């Protein structure tokens, strides 16, 4: 116990009794001051009038340089390269001819759940992983109409659908050495022979009876397949593992909670900030036993720096959502890990949302860039976070170089760059037994899983994200293994401006938006940038759009059969021409209102989406379909 702190509490109690009236008056005065501050705070929210600001950075346009994107026209991993830039240098399709873009071929996956995966293209083949039941299709691009060459059906357990928090999605596969690696919903990582579709190995990594699933896209690097689990809403214990790409044997597995030996924290662990240092923080920052159901699932994106041999990934929300049930910082949930790829030992960790209050997972992509910070070139990672801040961090040390809100934030007051700590807004802190209103960003965050893209042509990061706020009511959640562990009743709605989605072109050097596109529905698709100066993304009502990277001007659009929540890719076909591909098929967390036929009369349906996207069933229907576009030739 800390006597100083406690003495102060006692003193406060004494004063309260003696100076009751003074206290009341003081409170009144404070209340007035607070109201004024809040009003002022609302006024200072980033205004939406920046929407049409033209790109002003033509002087010194390339202010940030991506690493590791030698481009051979293939698309071998969901994020295109280890640096996760999602930039294709192909420039056959450009801002002038894009309006002539037309459908080259389509392919129906036969599945009506949310299609979040990026197709892969290697040589003359395209590979698609579908949502549950996780079929893998290999399409032969050398033949007219790209017929199916082989199909692999992993037959995941049907019951796995019941523990997948946010639709039964899959975010894609990875390729290396003529092998396709992917995860199934029932926690298997499978390696297939890319030529024949024969299964080479499978490794079971988790248990659906504890609420675990796997939805993320693996990353293959240094002969290892990097995978993690999902299930933060089910009170799982998060982990991240490296499998030997040749055999499927587990090389190392690092948990997100528990004693240091489980988290793979050893002598090499050197976090930048004091708050992330200490022994067995994965136990001591939780109430007794709570770390065993503490979440921190690694269901998002993985990046890799071959020079530092460090692999970067984020950890998800702690369980349960209700923060009052887990006093403490709840390490190592809602943060980002840098680990040595060979032995998995943690190099550093940074907790972006200590004691997470609002389900603000830290699993978003880390785009590895070399860019000038205060006049000096630094090796950094750019992370547009779910909590609303765009972080630039030194990727060798974990130091936060800047963190600026890229949309309206009322939940927090900012990031202290000295301590690295996010400061929550006390007025928005959830309390059991009451409903706190007007929290921005909402639980799906300023930006959920759907990845941003970087373009070296402009030096900008293009972030498809949400503009949602929420009402939050906490209650005590009960833990029963394999059932949800949430403890909050939430309701989302459009934030300031009334639109639910935004695409922000963000200047990472100057930490400011350059232009924005407002979208009516939440943006749940990834982004793609190309050497032709184009930016591709899709909307949940099915429009696939190409805009000018410099101005955000809409240049071309095409209405697909279902809402788009997938990741667009660009590749060079066997004929030498550039193609753009996207999976259409609404679903995912907000889209489950369509794909799982939710009833929007309940505003809390789908953990809060009933009120936010109740109009979606009128705007789109379910159905998975691949669309591939090309110029006429």
């Amino acid at each position, binding site marked *: 116990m800390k006597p100083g702190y406690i003495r102060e509490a006692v003193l406060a109690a004494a004063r309260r009794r003696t100076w009751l009236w003074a206290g009341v008056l003081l409170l009144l005065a404070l209340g007035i001051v607070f109201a004024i501050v809040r009003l002022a705070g609302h006024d200072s929210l980033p205004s939406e009038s920046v929407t049409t600001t033209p790109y002003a950075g033509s002087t010194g346009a390339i202010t940030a340089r991506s690493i590791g994107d030698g481009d051979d026209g293939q698309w071998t991993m969901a994020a295109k390269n280890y640096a996760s830039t999602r930039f294709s240098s192909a420039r056959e399709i450009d801002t002038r001819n894009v309006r002539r873009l037309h459908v080259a071929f389509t392919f129906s996956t036969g599945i009506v759940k949310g299609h979040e995966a990026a197709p892969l293209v290697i040589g003359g083949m395209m590979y698609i992983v579908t949502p549950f039941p996780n079929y893998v299709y290999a399409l032969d691009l050398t033949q007219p109409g790209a017929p199916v060459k082989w199909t692999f059906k992993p037959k995941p357990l049907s019951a796995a659908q019941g523990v997948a928090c946010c639709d039964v999605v899959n975010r894609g596969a990875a390729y290396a050495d003529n092998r396709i690696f992917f995860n199934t919903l029932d926690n298997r990582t499978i390696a297939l022979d890319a030529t024949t579709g024969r299964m080479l190995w499978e490794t079971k990594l988790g248990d659906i009876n504890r609420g675990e699933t796997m939805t993320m896209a693996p990353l293959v690097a240094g002969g290892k397949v990097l995978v993690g689990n999902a299930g933060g809403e089910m009170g799982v214990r998060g982990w991240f593992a490296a499998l030997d790409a040749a055999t499927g044997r587990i090389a190392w597995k690092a948990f997100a909670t528990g004693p240091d030996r489980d988290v793979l924290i050893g002598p090499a662990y050197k976090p930048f900030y004091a708050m992330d240092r200490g022994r067995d923080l994965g136990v001591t920052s939780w109430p007794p036993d709570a770390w065993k159901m503490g979440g921190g699932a690694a269901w998002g994106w993985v990046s890799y720096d071959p020079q530092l041999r460090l692999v970067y990934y984020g950890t998800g929300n702690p369980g349960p959502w209700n923060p009052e049930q887990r006093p403490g910082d709840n390490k190592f949930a809602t943060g980002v890990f840098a680990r040595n790829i060979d032995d998995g030992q943690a190099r550093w960790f940074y907790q972006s949302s200590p004691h997470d209050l609002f389900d603000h997972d830290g699993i978003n992509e880390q785009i590895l860039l070399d860019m000038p910070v205060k006049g000096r070139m630094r090796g950094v990672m750019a992370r547009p976070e779910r909590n609303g801040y765009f972080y630039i961090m030194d990727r060798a040390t974990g130091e936060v170089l800047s963190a600026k809100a890229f949309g309206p934030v009322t939940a927090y007051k900012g990031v202290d760059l000295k301590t690295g700590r996010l400061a929550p807004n006390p007025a928005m802190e959830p309390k059991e037994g*009451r409903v706190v209103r007007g929290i921005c960003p909402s639980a799906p965050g300023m930006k959920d899983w759907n990845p941003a893209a970087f373009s070296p042509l402009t030096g900008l990061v293009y972030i498809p994200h949400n503009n949602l706020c929420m009402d939050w009511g906490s209650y005590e959640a009960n833990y*029963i293994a394999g059932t949800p562990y949430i403890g909050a009743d939430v309701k989302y709605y459009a934030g300031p401006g009334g639109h639910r989605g935004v695409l922000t072109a963000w200047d990472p050097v100057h930490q400011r938006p350059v232009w924005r596109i407002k979208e009516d529905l939440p943006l749940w698709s990834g982004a793609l940038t190309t050497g032709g100066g184009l930016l591709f993304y899709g909307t949940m009502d099915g429009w696939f759009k190409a805009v000018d990277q410099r101005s955000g001007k809409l240049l071309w659009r095409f209405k697909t059969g279902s809402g788009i929540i997938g990741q667009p890719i660009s590749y060079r076909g066997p004929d030498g021409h550039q193609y753009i591909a996207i999976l259409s098929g609404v679903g995912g967390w907000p889209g489950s209102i369509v794909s*799982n*036929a*939710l009833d929007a009369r*309940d505003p809390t349906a789908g953990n809060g989406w009933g009120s936010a996207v109740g109009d979606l069933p009128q705007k789109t229907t379910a159905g998975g379909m691949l669309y591939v576009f090309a110029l006429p030739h």
Partner: protein
Amino acid sequence: MIASLVSLSACDREERESRGRPLAEAAAGGPLVSTLRAGEPPHPRPDPRAAEYENNAYAVSQGQKLFQAMNCSGCHAHGGGGMGPALMDDQWRYGGNMEQIVATLDQGRPNGMLSWRGRLTAQQMWQLAAYVRSLSAQQRQDVLPGRADEPSNTEPQTLRSREEMHSSSPAGVQGTAQ
């Protein structure tokens, strides 16, 4: 005299049964998944407890409490669904009368609904079934819960309009006798 008779008739709504009877014996003939028995009469011998629980305000409010405490709301929200299907609409994948809902709770269902046999008592399942039916306002208005114990972002069931019951087989169309 008439007034007292009228008030007596409302008593079953308020009755509090604290122990309940086990499921096994009473389930002779079984809580059937009638959707799997096309062509047969759905429930040749309806379970008398169905009407008892369904028309009892205490059972429905206990069911409401369990629906939250046993994390049903984590998947089905307040009837709108999420990971699990919506319960407030007129679609019942595995049948929507009391016996069928109890069977679903007891046995589990293949696409993710887990079996609560041995985890919930028969009485709790009946109470839950009564509450689940209240989500689509199947009961009398005076039985429906007006509000929940927890802070809720939803409107009370008493304001909902009754959903007709549709199901993949004719069996599910039949509600429990009032």
